[in-house]
């Protein structure tokens, strides 16, 4: 399919792309420049209404507001840890909004922006990071799988789910999220082999945020990641991950191809992790502040805002209303997090098996009796 063939078209590189630590970007798909100028791409066109553009902006801004609030809550001791998506909003919102209702997404642990687009309650995501739950939301109802912390494991699940869709003759696809570091895992490579062999309706959405914790992408790959797809026998495309329109267009095309029986696509969303790996991390130990400064110029939200205002699609009143909505959302997240009840201890026994075992019943009773022994002792 022509929309998925690799393009040789040279688009404007994002500012700073020629800096020594970044490879050149001849194959980058872009529909919105960092300055907010709408550009065309020969293989990827995008029809979006003004209303849809405003909605995308709203998604980006709200997801960032949530993220900022979560980081603050962690600093205040209300979360054990937080994995920030700062800088990756466009990659996640663009990918998430490309999904149809029945498509299934398989996230890592950082896809809060995708969770948002699937209608997952942010508080359910917060519950994981507060340490009150190991799952968080209903993956069946939301079509958003549980977060997967073990790097790469979910890419195989997405592939298997896609094989199930294929068997059922369903006109849906799956979207497997992964990071740049994850591409080194054996399981991820197995997923791509399976997806290719069975022509499974799956797209691999790799957010290349340039780092796996402290390890730069150069440690994982000698070639641009999207070029790896060719070796597996399916198309690979590099998209400007800070351009929500390009991400939306490229992901839509990949999912459409998957649904039409053309098999997998590998999407490399070229972006940058603006924050620390998690709140436990200290990026000053391994990267330069100047790098961050360069990437600030490519901010995903600023560029859409520039486009919307310049083209008259949104006015100051709109932006103010989104800001206000963001503050409300943040307040709701804060309140909900602080009010989140600790789980009952007995919960740990209750869903281990579909059919409970006598031994766990016994351990549960022992647990209850043991804790009852402390009652009134202020335990």
């Amino acid at each position, binding site marked *: 399919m022509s929309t998925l063939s690799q393009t040789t078209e040279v688009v404007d590189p994002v500012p700073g792309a020629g800096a020594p630590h970044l490879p050149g970007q001849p194959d980058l798909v872009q529909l919105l420049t960092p300055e907010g100028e709408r550009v065309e791409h020969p293989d990827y066109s995008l029809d979006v209404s003004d209303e849809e553009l405003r909605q995308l902006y709203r998604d980006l801004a709200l997801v960032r507001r949530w993220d900022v609030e979560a980081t603050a809550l962690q600093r205040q001791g209300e979360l054990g840890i937080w994995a920030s998506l700062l800088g990756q909003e466009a990659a996640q919102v663009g990918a998430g909004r490309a999904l149809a209702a029945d498509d299934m997404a398989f996230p890592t642990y950082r896809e809060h922006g995708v969770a948002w687009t699937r209608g997952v309650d942010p508080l359910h995501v917060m519950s994981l990071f507060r*340490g009150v739950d190991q799952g968080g939301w209903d993956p069946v109802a939301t079509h958003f799988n549980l977060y997967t912390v073990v790097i790469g494991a979910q890419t195989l699940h997405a592939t298997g789910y896609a094989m199930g869709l294929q068997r059922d003759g369903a006109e849906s696809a799956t979207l497997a999220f992964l990071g740049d570091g994850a591409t080194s895992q054996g399981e991820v490579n197995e997923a791509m082999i399976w997806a290719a062999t069975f022509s499974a309706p799956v797209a691999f959405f790799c957010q290349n945020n340039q780092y796996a914790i402290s*390890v730069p992408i150069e440690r994982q790959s000698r070639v641009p990641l999207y070029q790896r797809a060719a070796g597996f026998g399916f198309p690979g495309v590099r998209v400007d991950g800070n351009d929500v329109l390009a991400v939306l267009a490229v992901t839509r095309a990949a999912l459409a191809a998957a649904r039409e029986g053309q098999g997998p696509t590998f999407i490399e969303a070229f972006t940058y992790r603006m924050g620390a790996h998690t709140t436990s991390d200290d990026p000053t130990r391994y990267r330069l502040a100047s790098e961050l400064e360069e990437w600030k110029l490519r901010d995903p939200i600023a560029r859409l805002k520039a486009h919307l205002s310049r083209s008259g699609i949104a006015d100051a009143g709109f932006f103010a209303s989104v800001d206000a909505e963001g503050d409300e959302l943040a307040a709701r997240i804060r309140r909900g997090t602080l009010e989140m009840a600790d789980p009952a201890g007995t919960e740990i026994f209750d869903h281990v098996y579909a059919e409970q075992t006598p*031994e766990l019943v016994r*351990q549960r009773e022992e647990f209850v009796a043991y804790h009852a022994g402390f009652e009134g002792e202020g335990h």
Partner: protein
Amino acid sequence: MSTETLTIGKALNLGLRKAMEDDAKVVLMGEDIGKLGGVFRITDGLQKDFGDDRVVDTPLAEAGILGTAVGLAMRGYRPVCEIQFDGFVFPAYNQIVTQVAKIHARSRGRLPMPIVIRIPFGGGIGAVEHHSESPEAYFAHTAGLKVVAVSTPPDAYWGIQQAIAHPDPIVFLEPKRRYWEKGQVDVDATPDPLFASRVVRGGDDVTVLAYGPMVKTALQAAQAAAEEGRSLEVIDLRTVSPLDLAPVFDSVRRTGRCVVVHEAPVTLGLGSEIAARVTEECFHSLEAPVLRVGGYDTPYPPSKLEEEYLPDLDRVLDAVDRSLGF
């Protein structure tokens, strides 16, 4: 004599440094162990001083770390592999169990596998999933592997050096929640052997066995018990495979009672093996069955529940009471 006050983490760092100075064949491999110094900073400063060919930030692939360690070991290197967290050793499990553990036997000793697999293990740090596991039994169950668990700064300092110098593959378990605990390390002392258990508190009424993070818990329990007039003998097993149970048998023959404590689930945990061996060796001295205190047979819980899941002083004392009640 030069004694320093060190945390367990710093003692490991200095021990690694010493091992690298002593033997140019020692190579550290792992995720984020270079500039970052590892997520727990155990390798802090080592890449700067020894270079990035001796302190290697690997691609993000644990099977790759262990599989290439095998090849490097065949070439006479001594790979020291850092697994970032206990829950992430499983992509490497195949290499560890089917290859690392068997190559010495299959080659009739022609291919020694002096590989150290460092794993920060256990819970208690309020982490998300897969960061609080106690996988020791999987490894102890595998012939060809040795498994040790340190609990103090001197054991960390010496133990890591002894493990690296040892000819067999060793799973080296580091009690992550105790990394910041301090203790005196005499770097001129003659260390205790690596594969030896140690009586860390003498007592007469009940023998309490622990290793890694639970040694401190057992000692706290012994302190609390002493205030109530009960005398617990605490033994730090130190080595999980091979087990060094002679001091345990001596102790149990005196006390007649034994409680084993670990974070790992009790079912088929180390406590099960120890209970069987103690029963075989000390049957006529036992006043009570050997009791096990450990995690429940459930997945590791969300962190808000980990205090209820993990053995603590009270659960150890509860088992001591039950033992004394027989």
